[in-house]
């Protein structure tokens, strides 16, 4: 299903960060949000999840208006979120983190098995507390936890941050698998190389305002937009 942001404005308390932002993430594509630090990329993901109240506008998944629901209902519609810094439940075990992922949606043991097959290393660490995992394993767990929702839309906030190349490659493979499965993916990523490898389309955000949305091919040919909105 297509996720649509229809002129959303949001912020933290009285401080407005997003201004009338409209975007669309289609099934089976990776839409990358690009912009400088503080442009509003993470805020956009939080607003989609309902973790920030909207000042105006709507978030729609197909015909369902996510922004009219309480925040805890949003994941039940298949919106998986992998936040920046992973935000695992650090004192819970790997098995318990996965269990939390299965609470809202998914098909219990079947989904759990599927996810553990994708990340076999987690199967060896099920009884280990999340805080004792390496950075790469923590990212695997954060991804596995979100995939437990059997998502139709996946929001990834800087998933390759601080990871070694082998882990980045694993994340890329996972994104490819999800895209092939028809999941709409919104990716916030600072590493341009990762953006050019993973994204189908790129949406630029500047000071909370939506700017150009272009196919990644355009960026590969012409880096002027990167210079304009990201300063690279």
């Amino acid at each position, binding site marked *: 299903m297509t996720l649509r942001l229809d002129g959303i404005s949001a912020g933290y308390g009285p401080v407005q960060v997003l201004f009338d932002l409209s975007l669309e993430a289609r099934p089976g594509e990776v839409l990358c949000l690009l912009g400088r630090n503080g442009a509003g990329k993470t805020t956009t993901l939080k607003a989609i999840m309902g*973790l920030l109240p909207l000042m105006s506008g709507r978030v729609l998944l197909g015909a369902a208006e996510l922004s009219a629901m309480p925040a*805890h209902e949003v*994941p039940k519609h298949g919106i998986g979120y992998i*936040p920046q810094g992973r935000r695992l*439940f650090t004192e819970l075990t790997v098995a318990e983190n996965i269990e939390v992922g299965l609470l809202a949606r998914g098909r219990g043991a079947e989904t759990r098995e599927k996810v553990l097959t994708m990340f076999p290393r987690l199967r060896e660490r099920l009884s280990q507390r999340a805080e004792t995992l390496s950075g790469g394993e923590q990212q695997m767990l954060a991804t596995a936890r979100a995939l437990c929702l059997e998502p139709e839309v996946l929001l990834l906030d800087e998933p390759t941050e601080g990871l070694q190349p082998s882990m980045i490659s694993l994340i890329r493979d996972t994104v490819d698998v999800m895209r092939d499965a028809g999941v709409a993916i919104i990716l916030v990523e600072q590493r341009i190389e990762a953006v050019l490898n993973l994204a189908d389309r790129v949406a630029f955000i500047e000071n909370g305002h939506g700017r150009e949305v272009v196919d990644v091919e355009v960026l590969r040919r012409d880096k002027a937009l990167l210079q304009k909105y990201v300063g690279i």
Partner: protein
Amino acid sequence: MEFGPHLILAILEGAVGAAVLALTALGLSLVFGIMRVVNVAHGEFFMLGAIVAWWVATSIAGHPALGFVAAAVVAPLVAGGVAVLGDRLVLKRVHYDPEATIVATIGILYIIQQLALMTYGPEARPVEPPFNSRIALPWFEFGETGFEIYYPWGFGTTTYKLFVIGAAAVILVGFWLFLSRSRIGLVMRATQLDREMATAFGIPVSRVYSLVFGLGAALAALAAVLIVPIQQAHYLMGGDPLLLSFIVVIIGGLGSIRGTIVAAVLIGLSDGIISVFFSPTLAKIIATLLVALVLVFRPQGLFGKKPA
């Protein structure tokens, strides 16, 4: 009586206090740990439990055990229900803001206390224990004829006091199993660790908060049901358990269940022993001093985690 038997008696008295205190403080610790709410009204839920226990026990005819069992079911439900109402009507509306909830729970404290005074009255009333046989305890000495066992006069306890210690231990273990093994326990722990991410995974945090606030009050009420056959129910009885619970959760580490239980045993036993040998006031002074030392040298408590 000799020092040895006297000390054992003091430890037994302290153990009863520690058992009840562990239950009461666990409720306070749970509410703070998960909701980050300093519940100043916690002692009033304890008092409410005691008063409801008296009402239920005196309105059921027959063997005192019937009234006691009914009270052990009804009092936690009533206190928990009142707490859930308080959460929905008051705490939720101030968005669980830490400072606002302190003022709000002070308000809840006075409402419950004054309602108790208006309906129950100012008298202290006892609840009959379900059983209360006296058990004489043996002591020993090495006399002229060698090792001798005898029963010193006044050296004993009651079956009910031993029951209080056992029942509290069973409830604590049961609660630990509930938190660590059940799905609701998992939801509560996830909410404690990261409220926002819990929401992002479909956990209705405000409902979890209501449940936790209700459970915290129910634990205090259950502790009161256990103690009310030993102490009497009175509308001002909530002050001491509140003070001691705060002492316990600060020493144990705010939000740490293990720390709460260890600190409750420590404070309960020392309170019992110092009260028997010296005075209850000195026991409170020493406990308060201990809190001051913990706050200065280990502000996160004995088992609490240092904030990152």
